[in-house]
């Protein structure tokens, strides 16, 4: 044991005295001597062979960050991913939908044969099950294609290059270049994108990234965009170019989203989140060969199953809610119709209709179920019993519900800009621990969505 007792405060006093003697470049000197040692040791143990060194990485980097090709390559890769998703997801989606409708019809028949009350049968099979079936068939195929491709890009090390290419834009918007990374993560899931903002060290710039992440369409919203692009945009082109045109339309929507990200960042950085730019140091790691197993694991288990499960959890009650709304009458008209009628004026003003807005209200827990909800409400008032292909959706929307190009465009814009889903809002709260920022994060996009769609609707109606 110790014999002499020394007060720790004396040690601190002495340390403070010595520190003041040495001046304020202490850190500089420590790091310099650490690096001098590191350099000496590394020099002794590493032999750099002649011939090829850094070759491939630098050559690829020169191309993907080139002043001429850098941005086109980025857009090209984005378009390619969407195109593959669109053409790849179409057929499996249709098959899944057909399968589920057969199951639904058979099961309902069976229930009736067993003497289960029609109300209960309808609730379970035409309500809850149909909601689930829709979510799985609409979402699973695009996700199972999109997420692995995105994970490949991530594992390759391409995303830091995207941040490098786009930093200038973000800097001018008063934000951090790494926001491009978090934005890219947002394509998968906005909640994941918001969690990813942790890579930004400056609290101010991180908050900007959190509040604006919602403007990149997440995977829950892609099915809506893809469906609309396929039904409305692709139909206007010859079949050979249809899927390309659809992919192009989705890229266009994404670019609008990026534009709104920059615009809202700029607005935030000039109003409530003023401040100076923080240090920007971004490492561009060497390209790595992605490991297939890991990609399948992360993209399918971590992302696809996670997002799908969340959608299923919200789709079941939503399906039940829609069925109840569609089957309980009041004054001879279903509650769904009542609600839709109530929302109709607002819906019309922004170029949509009451049913679409109702779907968005019901879909607050998860954006994934907007399209299924919408279709179910429409079907509740329509003669059609099953929807198994884009052609049938087309007939339902255009011929029966009177959708126009304006409806499609504004729905795409609304879907891009509207409020984040409940999970994302909770994530904003978890990351900021602030009611104020959570509220701003939830309402700012909604204001944008109404303003933009209203402006577009008004302009189009005035011109035509």
């Amino acid at each position: 044991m110790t014999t002499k007792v020394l007060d720790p405060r004396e040690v601190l006093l002495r340390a403070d005295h010595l520190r003041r003697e040495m001046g304020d470049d202490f850190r500089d000197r420590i790091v310099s001597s650490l690096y001098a040692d590191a350099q000496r040791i590394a020099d002794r143990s590493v032999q750099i062979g002649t011939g090829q060194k850094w070759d491939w990485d630098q050559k690829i980097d020169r191309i993907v960050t080139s002043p001429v090709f850098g941005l086109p390559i980025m857009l090209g890769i984005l378009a390619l991913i969407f195109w593959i998703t669109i053409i790849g997801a179409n057929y499996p989606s249709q098959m899944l939908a057909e399968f589920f409708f057969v199951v639904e019809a058979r099961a309902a028949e069976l229930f009736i044969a067993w003497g289960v009350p029609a109300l209960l049968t309808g609730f379970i099979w035409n309500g809850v099950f149909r909601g689930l079936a829709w979510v799985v068939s609409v979402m699973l195929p695009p996700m199972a294609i999109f997420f692995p491709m995105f994970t490949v890009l991530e594992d390759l090390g391409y995303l830091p290059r995207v941040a490098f290419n786009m930093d200038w834009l973000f800097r001018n918007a008063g934000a951090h270049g790494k926001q491009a990374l978090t934005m890219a993560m947002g394509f998968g899931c906005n909640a994941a994108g918001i969690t990813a903002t942790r890579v930004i060290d400056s609290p101010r710039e991180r908050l900007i990234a959190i509040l604006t992440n919602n403007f990149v369409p997440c995977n829950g919203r892609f099915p809506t965009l893809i469906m609309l692009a396929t039904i409305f945009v692709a139909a206007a082109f010859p079949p050979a170019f249809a899927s390309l045109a659809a992919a192009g339309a989705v890229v266009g929507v994404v670019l609008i989203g990026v534009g709104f990200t920059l615009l809202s960042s700029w607005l935030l950085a000039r109003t409530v989140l003023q401040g100076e730019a923080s240090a920007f140091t971004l490492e561009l790691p060497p390209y790595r060969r992605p490991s297939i197993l890991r990609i399948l694991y992360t993209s399918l288990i971590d992302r696809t199953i996670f997002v799908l499960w969340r959608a299923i959890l919200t789709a079941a009650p939503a399906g039940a809610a829609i069925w109840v709304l569609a089957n309980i009458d009041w004054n001879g008209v279903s509650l769904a119709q009542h609600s839709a009628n109530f929302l109709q004026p607002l819906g019309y003003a922004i170029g949509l209709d009451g049913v679409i807005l109702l779907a968005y209200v019901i879909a607050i827990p998860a954006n994934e179920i907007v399209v299924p909800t919408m279709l179910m409400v429409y079907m509740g008032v329509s003669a059609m019993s099953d929807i198994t292909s884009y052609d049938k959706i087309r007939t339902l929307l255009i011929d029966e519900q009177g959708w126009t190009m304006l409806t499609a465009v504004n729905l795409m814009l609304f879907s891009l800009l509207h409020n984040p889903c409940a999970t994302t809002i909770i994530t904003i709260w978890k990351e900021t621990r602030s009611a104020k920022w959570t509220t701003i994060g939830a309402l700012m996009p909604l204001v944008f969505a109404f303003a933009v769609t209203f402006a577009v609707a008004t302009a189009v109606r005035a011109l035509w």
Partner: protein
Amino acid sequence: MTSQAWVLLVLIFAIAVAWPKIGLWTQWRHYQAEKTRRLVEDALKHIVAWEQRGQAATPESLAGALSLSQRRTLSLIIRMEKRGLLRSDPAGFSLTSKGESWALHVVRAHRLWERYLADDAGMPMERLHQAAEIAEHQLSAEKLDKLDAHLGHPQRDPHGDPIPAADGSLKPVDAVSLSQWPTGEQARIVHIEDEPDVIFRQIIAAGLRPGVNIRILENTPERLVISDGNTEHRLAHIVAANIQVAEARHSLRPAGAIRLSELPKGEPAEVIELDAACRGFSRRRLLDLGLTPQTRIEVALDNPFGDPRAYRVRGTTIALRRQQAGQIWVKPPSTSANQQTAKEAIHA
């Protein structure tokens, strides 16, 4: 309007005024107390500043510094005396120990806040003082201790003034005016007076700030010519008098040094130093990435927009914005022999 409505209105008004904690009366009282505190603290600052210069503040100097009328200055002095903050005698005022420790708290708040704004928030030098003038009245001792710890217990504010320690101890700057420094000798700027503002802005605009090494090339009765290694500055004596210098710690930036942001692509270079303006988190991060003196560096990638650029350093590729790269001084390795010996020196 009926009489009941009037009664109700008066009642509501009375409640709004008298409500505890958030009522208008309490709010007003709170506001008044804040105002008085600000006045008292400004007075304390003035007196301690004069004390540090070895002078005693007078009612006139105080009235001038706070732009108060004689009458209000006197009532302020009386109030402060009653609170046991100062003593007045024919020669002027002196602070009691209570007054002194409060004054040093305000000084500490001001300088720490300036340090914080400069290092963490990256605020330009010329805006620091005004911002800190407001913040100095709002920071509690606990908040200051936290800020002090967060900043790594800095010793000086961005102007070079010493920051009092938590216990109130203050180590004065050991420096002389630039005009008195011998010609030809190297010096390190340790302090820049922030008032008057016009002169301060002139000095800052020239890129001179605490930590920068300089050499006096010429000292005539008309002017002073100094060099920071690659740029010459001509200063009037009235400007030079506001710059204080001390012994240089390391050698002057060599001629031919350029900012990393100006380094042409394809030309290797080596780091000389990080600029004195690069501080706080930004400086620590650059050091941690290995941008220490004598490190070899070259431009690796340009960018579609021209900014940021990526640099190759210690086997890694790091992207930096132009503003940051501009704070890194490099030298093209025309003198590669020197560098070799420098490296050998490290090895030995």
